[in-house]
C-alpha cells in the first residue's frame, strides 16, 4: 500500500455522504491495525529506539498516525474527528507510541483559543471548510487562520483550487513545483513542505526536489524571474520575458507564462502571509507533530525560539494597558484627515516629495534584531543565488523607478491581459483583489461603525509605494499620519523579508486591535504585494507583446 493508494482512501473522507465517510474510516482503521500487527512484537515502550529493522515500516505507520492525528483535530466532520481520536486512543492502548501536535494551534502568534475551533463553526464556514476538505483532503493552517474572514477565505480557496487543480496551461506537478520555488525564495518551510507533498502526490519526479538544477531546463529558466519578482519586480524587463519565450525547445508559451507569473506572485505573497501570521506547520507534516512525550515545561523548543514564553505574554499584556488609547488616537487622526482634507491643499511638488520620502524611507534597513530561523528542509536548494535579496540591494542605495498606476493599472490593463491569456482567471483574481481591498466590518478594536476605508487605503498604497507604484491622486502624507513606526516596520519586514518576522513584531503593532483585525491587515498586505508584483510582471509582458 503506497502513498498513492493511501491518498485515495483519505479522499473518501471528504465526502459529504456520511456513510461513505464511514466506510473510508473503517478502511483506515483496518489499515492502521494491520500495520501494527505486521510490525510484530510491540516495541518495549521503555526502550528509547525502536528496532532498526522496522524502520521503514514504522515510519510508514507514523506517517499514517500523523495523518490520523491531523484528522482528529482538523477534519470538519465531527464523526471523523471522534473516530480518529478513538483510533489513536486504541493504538495507544495497544502500546504503540502516538504522535501529538507540536505548538499551539495553527499560528504561533495567535493564541489557539482565538482561532476558530473546528468543532464550533457556523454554517457558512462549515460549508467552506467542507468544500476545502473535499478538494484538498486536509484543512491547512492557513485556511484556519483565514477563517476569521470567511468571505475572503471562500474566494481564496476558489482561486487556489482553480490555479492548482483546474484546467490550465501548466501540468499539475509543474504548478506545485513553481509554488515550491516561489515559497523557497522566502525560505517558507511551511509552504514548501505542503507543496512537496502535493507535488509527489500528483506524480512529480522526486529527483526535482533535490534542487533546481535537477529540474528540466525549462523550469530552471524561471529561476531568474522568480528572483526578480520576489525582491525587485521593477527590474523586470521585456528582455527577461523574451528570454523565457524564445528559448528554442525550452521556451514557454505566453499562456503558460501568465500561469507561472500568477503562481509565483501568489506564493511570494502567501509566504508573506504565512510568516506574518506565524503559521505553524500542519499537524501531519514534518515538524507539525512529535512522538516525544510532552516535556515538563509545556513549551516546545520552537515556541521558545520564537519568544512565545509565558513571560512575554504577561509583558505584552502590561504594555497594552499602558498604551490604551492608541486606537482612539488613530481614529482621531483619521477624522482630522477627513475634515481638513479640503482646507489645506499641499502643492504638487510637495505631494511628489512626500511620495519619494515614503518610498526611500521604506527602503531603509529593517532593524535586524531577530535571530535566524533554521529551516528543517533545505529549502534554499529550490532556488539559485540565495544571497540575492533586499539586503544587498538597499545597501547599494538603488533607486526604485516610479510606476504610475494611471499608466498601468490592474483594473484597466492587467486584467485584460490575464483574461486574454488565461481565460476566466482574470475574473477570479479581480474578485480576490476587490474582496481584500473592500473587506471591512466597520470596526476598529472595540469601536463599532468606523469607516476604515482611509486606513485600508493607506496600508494598500504604502505597500505599493514600497514597490514604487504611485497613485497620482493620493496624498502620501496620510501614510505618515496613520501608520506608526512599529506598524511600518512590520509591513516592511513582511513584504521584503517575511522570514524575519517575529512574534515581537507581530505583537508590537496595533496592540489593542483584535487578532482578526491583524489577520485582516495581513490579508491586505498579501494582496497588495501580489498585485504589485503582478503589475510589474504583466507590464513586462505587455511591453514584450507590443
Amino acid at each position, binding site marked *: 500500500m503506497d502513498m498513492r493508494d493511501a491518498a485515495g482512501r483519505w479522499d473518501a473522507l471528504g465526502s459529504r455522504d456520511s*456513510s461513505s465517510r464511514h466506510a473510508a474510516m473503517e*478502511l483506515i482503521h*483496518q489499515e492502521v491495525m494491520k500495520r501494527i500487527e505486521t510490525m510484530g512484537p510491540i516495541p518495549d515502550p521503555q526502550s528509547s529506539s525502536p528496532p532498526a529493522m522496522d524502520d521503514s515500516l514504522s515510519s510508514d505507520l507514523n506517517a499514517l498516525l500523523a495523518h490520523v492525528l491531523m484528522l482528529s483535530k482538523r477534519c470538519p466532520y465531527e464523526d471523523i474527528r471522534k473516530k480518529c481520536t478513538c483510533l489513536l486512543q486504541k493504538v495507544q492502548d495497544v502500546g504503540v507510541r502516538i504522535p501529538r501536535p507540536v505548538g499551539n494551534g495553527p499560528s504561533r502568534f495567535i493564541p489557539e483559543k482565538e482561532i476558530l475551533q473546528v468543532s464550533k463553526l457556523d454554517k457558512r464556514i462549515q460549508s467552506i471548510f467542507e468544500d476545502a476538505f473535499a478538494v484538498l483532503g486536509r484543512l491547512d493552517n492557513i485556511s484556519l487562520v483565514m477563517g476569521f474572514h470567511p468571505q475572503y477565505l471562500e474566494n481564496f480557496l476558489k482561486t487556489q483550487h482553480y490555479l492548482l487543480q483546474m484546467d490550465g496551461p501548466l501540468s499539475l506537478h509543474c504548478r506545485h513545483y513553481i509554488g515550491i520555488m516561489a515559497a523557497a525564495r522566502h525560505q517558507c518551510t511551511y509552504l514548501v513542505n505542503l507543496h512537496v507533498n502535493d507535488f509527489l502526490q500528483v506524480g512529480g519526479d522526486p529527483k526535482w526536489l533535490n534542487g533546481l538544477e535537477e529540474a528540466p531546463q525549462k523550469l530552471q529558466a524561471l529561476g531568474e524571474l522568480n528572483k526578480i519578482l520576489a525582491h525587485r519586480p521593477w527590474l523586470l524587463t521585456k528582455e527577461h520575458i523574451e528570454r523565457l519565450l524564445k528559448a528554442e525547445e525550452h521556451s514557454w508559451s505566453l499562456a503558460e507564462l501568465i500561469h507561472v507569473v500568477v503562481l509565483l506572485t501568489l506564493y511570494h505573497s502567501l509566504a508573506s502571509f504565512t510568516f506574518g501570521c506565524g503559521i505553524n506547520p500542519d499537524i501531519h507534516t514534518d515538524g507539525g507533530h512529535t512522538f516525544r512525550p510532552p516535556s515538563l515545561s509545556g513549551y516546545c523548543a520552537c515556541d521558545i525560539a520564537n519568544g512565545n514564553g509565558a513571560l512575554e505574554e504577561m509583558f505584552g499584556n502590561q504594555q497594552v494597558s499602558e498604551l490604551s488609547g492608541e486606537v482612539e488616537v488613530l481614529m482621531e487622526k483619521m477624522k482630522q484627515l477627513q475634515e481638513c*482634507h*479640503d482646507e489645506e*491643499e499641499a*502643492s*504638487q*511638488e510637495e*505631494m*511628489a516629495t512626500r511620495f519619494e520620502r515614503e518610498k526611500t524611507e521604506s527602503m531603509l534597513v529593517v532593524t535586524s534584531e531577530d535571530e535566524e530561523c533554521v529551516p528543517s528542509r533545505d529549502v534554499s536548494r529550490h532556488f539559485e543565488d540565495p544571497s540575492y535579496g533586499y539586503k544587498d540591494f538597499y545597501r547599494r542605495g538603488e533607486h526604485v523607478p516610479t510606476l*504610475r498606476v*494611471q*499608466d498601468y493599472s490592474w*483594473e*484597466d*490593463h492587467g*486584467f*485584460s*491581459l490575464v483574461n*486574454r491569456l488565461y481565460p476566466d482567471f482574470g*475574473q477570479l483574481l*479581480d474578485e480576490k483583489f476587490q474582496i481584500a481591498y473592500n473587506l471591512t466590518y466597520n470596526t476598529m478594536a472595540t469601536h463599532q461603525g468606523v469607516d476604515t476605508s482611509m486606513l485600508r487605503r493607506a496600508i494598500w498604497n504604502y505597500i505599493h509605494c514600497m514597490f514604487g507604484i504611485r*497613485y*497620482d*491622486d493620493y496624498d502620501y502624507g496620510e501614510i505618515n499620519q496613520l501608520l506608526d513606526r512599529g506598524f511600518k516596520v512590520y509591513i516592511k519586514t513582511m513584504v521584503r523579508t517575511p522570514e524575519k518576522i517575529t512574534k515581537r513584531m507581530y505583537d508590537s503593532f496595533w496592540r489593542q486591535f483584535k487578532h482578526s483585525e491583524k489577520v485582516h491587515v495581513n490579508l491586505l498586505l498579501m494582496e497588495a504585494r501580489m498585485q504589485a508584483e503582478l503589475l510589474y510582471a504583466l507590464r513586462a509582458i*505587455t511591453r514584450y*507583446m*507590443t
Partner: protein
Amino acid sequence: MEKLTRVSTISGRTMFCHLDAPANAISVCRDATQVVVAGRNIFKIYGLEEDGFVERLNLRVGRKPSLNFSCADVMWHQMEENLLATAATNGAVVTWNLARPCRNKQEQLFTEHKRTVNKVCFHPTEVNMLLSGSQDGFMKCFDLRKKESVSTFSGQSESVRDVQFSIKDYFTFAASFENGNVQLWDIRRPDRYERMFTAHTGPVFCCDWHPEDRGWLATGGRDKMVKVWDMSTSRVKEIYCVQTIASVARVKWRPERRYHLATCSMMVDHNIYVWDVRRPFIPFATFEEHKDVTTGIVWRHQHDPYFLLSGSKDSTLYQHMFKDASRPVDRANPEGLCFGLFGDLAFAAKESLMSAPPSVGDVGRKTYPGGDRRYPIFFFKKPDVTEQFEQVSSALSVFESEAGSSVGMDWFINTAQSYLLSGKPFGELCEHNAQVAKRLNRPQESTTWTMLRIMFSEPANPSLSSNHNLNKSGNLPLVNSFSMKEMSAALSERNKENRQDNLHSLETNLNNNDENEETEGSEGQAEYLFGDAELDDDDLYSMEHDNQAAEEPEYLLPQEAFPLRHEIIDHPSAPEPVQERPESPHVSGSETESTCLTSTESFSLISVSQLLFSPHLPPKFFCPIVKEMLCYYAEQGDVQMAVSVLIVLGDRIRKEIDELTQEHWYMSYIDLLQRFELWNVSNEVIKLSTCGAIMCLNQTSTTLHINCSNCKRPMSNKGWICDRCHQCASVCAVCHHVVKGLFVWCQGCSHGGHLEHVMEWLKHSKHCPAGCGHLCEYT
C-alpha cells in the same frame, strides 16, 4: 448649407507626427483646424494643415510642471473655441483659456475630487457648463463662472469612467461605472439618477450618444463588447452588440453614418476599428498605423465622416483618411464550415461557388417537388442602401445527420439489434434483414438484402421451398420493382434531406461566416423573406417531422447518390447469362451495387425481373459485384452493412475479400457496437466471425478478480474460502449460504448473493439485503 461648404474645404491625407510623450486623450476644436493632445507629460495644440501637423502651442509651462498637467482626459469646447478642459490624474479639473495673453493659459482649477478624474465633458450647447467624473464615484457639474461646483452627483459606487452629455436632450447626461452600470441623470436633479442599468460585466470604460438618434447610447467595456442601447422606450433595450477582440477603451459614432462607430482598445490590440453595428462580426474598416495602444480617437469634424484623428501611447498623432483604411471584409474568407453538436455539418460559401458544380439538389427538387419543398429555404435580406458593405450573397448548406434530434445513430442501434446473422436458412436471414432495413426506412440496404437473397439462395425449388416461399419468388419481380421505385424515391428524398439544394440561401451583404448568427440574432434588423413560394410554416413543420422518421444515416453527397437514379432509369441491357450451377440460380439484382457501378455494368430493373428464372448464373458470377458492394458500404462508413452481409453470406463470399480487410471491418464494427454498449451483438459478431484475429477476442480477459468480502484481500485460491481470514467469501446476503453459481452483487456496496434471491429481495425493498444502508439498484 454653410456647414456643408465648410466640410468640403477640408482636405488632407493620412499623416502623422511624433509627439514627445505618450498621449492619453485628444480633442479637436469645432472648425477642425486644431487638435489638442494631452497626456502625462504632454499638453500641446497642433494645427491641422494640408500636408502635416504643425505644433501651435505648448500648454505645459513652468519649470517644474505640476501634476495638474498630467492629464487623463481633455476636451475642447464645441461652442467657445478658446476654451479647453482637462482632467488630471491627481483629481484636479482644470480649464484653459487660449485667449489669455500670458504664457500660462490656465484659467480655473477645481480640486474637489479626491481621486483621479477620468473624464471631463462640456455641455454641447451651454457655454459655461462642465461635467466631470472621477474615480471617487462622484460626478460634479461646474459653472465656469463660479469658483466651485454647482452640483454633485453620487453614483453610489466607485469609479466613474465616463460622462457624456446627451446631444439632443438638454438636461440629460450618461455616466458609466467601473462596476458595469450605466446611469442616466437629469442635470437638475442631483439627488438621484433617473435610470440605471447594467450594461457590461466589468468596467464600462466609455459611452457615446448618437449624434442624431436621440435615444441611442453606445457603451464599451472591459468585457470586449460594444453595445448600443435604445433609451427612448420605457425599458432600456440593447439593440446592437459588437464583439471585439480586446477591452474597449473609446467609442465614437461616425458622423453622417447612422450605423457606424469607431472603437479602440485599451490593451494588446493597437488598431482602430470602424464598425457597422448591424454587421457586428467583422469591422467595416480598420486603421492599423499605431504601434502601441490607441488612447484617443476623434472624428475630425462633426459632419465629416472621412477623417479620423487618433493619439496613441506610441507617441504619435495620426490623421487617418477613410479611403486609406483597410477593409477586412475584402480579405475575409468567404467560406465557413462547422460541425454541430449532433454531427450536423454546415457549410457556407459564396453562391457563385456553390452553384458551380452540377447542383443536384435543384434537379432533385424539380423531379420530386412533393418531397422537396421543405429544404430549400431562402432568406432574403432587403438590401439596405445605407449599408456600405459589399454585397455578397452566399449559400449555406446544412448536412444534417438524420434520425431526428437524438444521437443520430438510432438506426445503427436498431439495426444492430434486429438483424439476424445466423440461425436460419440463408434466404430467410436475407428476407428478415431486408424487412428490418425497410422498417427502418433504409431502402437501399433493404434492397441490397433482397438482391442478395435472389443472387445467392437456392433456385426456387418447389421441393425445397414451401408454398410461401414460392409465392415469394413469384412475387419477386413485383417486390423488386416496387422497392426499386421506393428506393429511387427515397434516394431523391435523401438528396433533399442532405440538403444538396442550398437550403438557406441568404442574400446577404456580408460574408457568410456570419450568416448563422445573422439569421438568429438581431431582432432590430429586418425582414427575411421566404424565397420559396411553396414554403410555408406548415411545410417547415412537417419537414421537421419527416426528418425524425427518416433515418438515412450517412451524408451521401449528391454526386454519389444521384447517378444512381439515372442508372436505374436507363439500365441498358440484360445481363448475359452465364453458365449455371445447380445450387445457385439467380436473378441479378444489381441496383444495390449500381451505386458504384457504371451504367454499362448495371442491369436494368426490368430485365432483372424478367430474367428472374434464367437459371444460368453461378453465385460466383456475382462475387465481384458483391465484393464491390461491400467495399462501397464500408467506404461509406456503413461498416455494419458490410459485416452483416459478410457474416450472412459466410463462405459464399469470404474468400473473395482479403483477410486483412475483413478483419479491419470486423474490428471497426465491433468497436462501434461496443461504443453503443451493444455487448450482446458485439459478442455475437465475434462469435460468428471467421477471422482468427477476431475470434480470439473472446478469449482474452476472461479472468475475474475478486476480493474476499471480509478482509478485502484478493481471493487467490479457487475455493469458496478465503485463505487469509478463513471465512466463506461470497455469502448470499439473503440466505447466508455460500453462493456457488451465479453470484450477483451491487457495484456500490459490493454486497450480493444468489441471483434469484437478490431479485426477489429487491422487488420488495430498495435497500441492500446486507443491511448496509446502500440503496442498491438492480436493472
